[in-house]
């Protein structure tokens, strides 16, 4: 049986070699959003433009979750943090590194796609995450 790869939720990110987060940009106030919104959460203007966000940023805050929270079926511990992107937006994300001691403030980070678990239909469920950048 072939394992089908499926994203945890449609419309959050592009999968593949060079994944990107799917955000939007408000034409009125210029703010970036993630996930994508039609209506700007900052100024309420309609018609925000779809935009792919930068795949690279810097680490702003991080921790690791040591026990499985409700509804979570993946491995523990796992990293969670905040990555600051150059377009002036901070994104909450899973991190590829689960040992907080291996991370530091301002560290360059790069978007990647990581497996979460295999669902009841045999699909491999994947999500976006940030990993320490290669260079």
């Amino acid at each position, binding site marked *: 049986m072939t394992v089908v790869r499926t994203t*945890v*939720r449609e419309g959050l990110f592009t999968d593949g070699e060079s994944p990107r987060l799917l*955000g939007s940009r408000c034409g009125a106030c210029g*703010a*970036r*959003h*993630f*996930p994508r919104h039609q209506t700007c*959460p*900052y100024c309420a203007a309609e018609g925000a433009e779809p935009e792919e966000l930068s795949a690279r940023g810097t680490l702003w*805050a*991080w*921790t*690791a*979750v*040591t*026990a499985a*929270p*409700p*509804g*979570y*079926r*993946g491995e523990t511990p*796992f990293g*969670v*943090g*905040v990555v*600051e992107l150059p377009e*002036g*937006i*901070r*994104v*909450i*994300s*899973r991190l590829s590194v689960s040992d*907080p001691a291996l991370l530091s*403030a301002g560290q360059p980070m790069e978007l990647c796609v990581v497996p*979460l*678990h295999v669902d009841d239909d045999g699909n491999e*469920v994947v*999500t976006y995450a940030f990993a320490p950048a290669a260079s």
Partner: protein
Amino acid sequence: MSTRVRVAGVGMHPFGRFDGVSTTDMGARAVSAALREAGVTRGGFQAAFCGTAYGGVATGHKVLSRLGMTGMPIVDVEAGCASGGAALMLAAGAIRAGQYDTVLVFGTEKMPKGIIRSSFFEPWQEEAGLAATPSFFALRAQRLMVNSGVTKEHLAQVVVKNRRHGAANPDAMFHKEIAADEVLGSRVVCEPLHLFMLCSPNEGAAAVVLTGGGGPTGPGRPVTLAAAVLRSHLPGAVLSESTPLSGLTDDTVPSPTTLAATAAFEEAGLGPGDLHVVECQDTDAARELLSYEELGLCPAGGSAALLDSGDTALGGRLPVNPSGGLLSKGEPLGASALGQVVELVRQLRGDCGPRQVDRASVALSHTVGRGANAGVVVLTA
């Protein structure tokens, strides 16, 4: 000049774990105690607001049906950790507007055990591991450590202080003092937060009878509700209690706590320097320190120094969480804000025995949580 709102009576069901005792049982006990203290009987209040987040449909009706006191409007209020504060705001506003003379406000809750599962999050966020409440507390704690020079030792000292206070509170869940090395030796839940730095979701109830000009007065020193304010978040802060998936790199967006505190001080005609005692949100140890800064008890970045000064311990200049806080009492969402108000009313009346704050006549309570919702209440004697 609008109607002065007074607290005529307060009542509690202790906070803890009570197998076999229902949400209705606990609510009825707290309400009965508050009504008895206020000298209010059936027909003596014209509306009731009930704070609850996990109580289910018509929680308030079930409590008042049990007591044979229905017919008036009964409204359940959900505002996360600030549910009780939201109920109090609605009741006070209705009295000031002249809609009612006397209003019953209560909160009752039985929380599920373990990490709180919240319908606030979408299923995919749970699946992706982005719905673990303590992880958001931990990220906020780490930023406080960066911005304010807070260390893990400070976080442990908050727990030591509040558990010492709670040891003298019969309504608290934990009555045993704890040492800093025990706190730092407990397991890491989400770095930098260890197990004993997090409050326990639990069970309990609290009730307050509010009255305007013509109502009953209650026993002892009269207590005035000088302000009861609720605010939600402004968008922009990525670590806001509204738990967005992204935010801006703008660090000047005021927090919901600051918005609520500013409005409450204005409503009361008072400032942080006028306070004698505070009960604040200490869901985790860092949250208490962040509350010092957001409420204006110290300058931004000054929370570690304020804790180190000893001012916020019993016997200090401005005791914070003399009840033991949520770290000693645990947190039943719908009841926690009113539990703070019950404590502060007793403090202002001088009824707190070994945990009494000397000469307390101006008090502030603060709750903040999911929504975001932040509630700030100012009481004066």
